[in-house]
């Protein structure tokens, strides 16, 4: 069965004019978010995006942007409890918690 996470939340954006169709984003995306159409990348499965940031990191032409991070509740709860901001937390890989990013 296919895994599906929340829809309409991913922050991935593609500026089509900057895309050269090199295909690097398709190479690095672990969830098949992109497809190539007429020598340009297109986002065809936005809701599958887990915002890992691999595509934006590897787009040499700055066509992709995403607010990347690790979708880990432990990290966010840590951030919320210690700093009052879910974005400020880090996962406890190495701490007492079992979950790892």
């Amino acid at each position, binding site marked *: 069965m296919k895994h599906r996470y929340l829809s309409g939340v*991913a922050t991935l954006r593609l500026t089509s004019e900057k895309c050269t169709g090199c295909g690097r984003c398709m190479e690095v995306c672990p969830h098949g978010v992109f497809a190539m159409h007429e020598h340009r990348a297109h986002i065809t499965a936005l809701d599958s995006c887990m915002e890992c940031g691999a595509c934006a*990191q590897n787009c040499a032409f700055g066509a992709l942007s995403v607010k990347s991070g690790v979708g880990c509740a432990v990290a966010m709860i840590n951030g919320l409890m210690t700093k009052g901001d879910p974005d400020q937390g880090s996962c406890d890989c190495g701490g007492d918690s079992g*979950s790892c990013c």
Partner: protein
Amino acid sequence: MAINHSSGSKGKDVKDFRECGPGTHSFRLSPTLTFADRLGGIMCRTSNKFRMNYKITPGLYTLGNPGKSSPVLVSCNYRLSLNMLRSVLGDRDIWILVIDTKGINVWCAAGKGTFCSSEIARQLSACDLNSKVTHRTLILPQLSASGVSASKLQKMTGFTVKFGPVRATDIPTYLDNNNTATPAMRRVRFFLRDRATLIPMELIPAFRKVGLFLLIAAILFGATRSGIIYIKAIAGVAPFAVAGVTAVFTGSLLAPLLLPMIPGRAFSLKGFITGSIGAISIILLLPDYSSNPLFATFCIVAVPAFSSYLAFLFTGSSTYTSPSGVKAELKIVWPLYLVSAGISMVLLVMIVIRFWRPS
């Protein structure tokens, strides 16, 4: 550990390893996993402390007898990853450049920024890879892409960067097909067996939390001025132990295992659904406990909420949850968790007071 110095005598222990500098030797890896390696694999899935220290010295390693044109793979220094890598590559001749990720796996290290271009470049020059191979291609794990910019690394080192498949088991096919991966090889999966492997590390911390709660409950039920009456403590705590174990079972075992089959997309919702089934089961199957309306209420409030919380924590172990999604879940469920915890504690105190009232 079946790793030997490539030019030295056989049987050198891993402790003899040192960082390889210019002109120094690489270290030979065996494609066969020993009993200790397999045991280490199990330990990594059950002990966080063991896992965090299951490292290998960074440097240049060899499988078989690689020459000037043999492929160069780059990997992290988490020993479990390297064990997997060497066991699937069989008797091929390959260079493996192991970089220092502080013993963390590729994907997490890339996310944390330790699996990065500058570390690869540093290790590459420390091991003098330029003199060991004539080609200029590095094969990186696909999941390192969130930490490595291929174009930047290429500029830094002069090596062309290729991203290999997600899973190590696909590397032989990838190499045989002239360094090309099929779309399927590029996708992260999260099969039942992948999720099952992660269960022990979900259960252990969950049971720890329940244990702490039961300890507090036991003190409330059993404590008197002259010490703890154990019979009373056990009798009072027993229903709460059942509730706690049920929530752990539904939140940290059922929800992760049955993940795609449970309705809803939010992990917290999935855990709430399994937890509700758990709470209803307690009420129906244990009438002795649930005949106490306060305890029945406790079950209905606490079990689904705690189960939901535990399932929500599994987002960190999953392979497809986005930070935006987790944050959206957190915003909704966090206040609900706090309210449920508050009500549960009030109910516990009420049950304790009734327990102590002389009948």
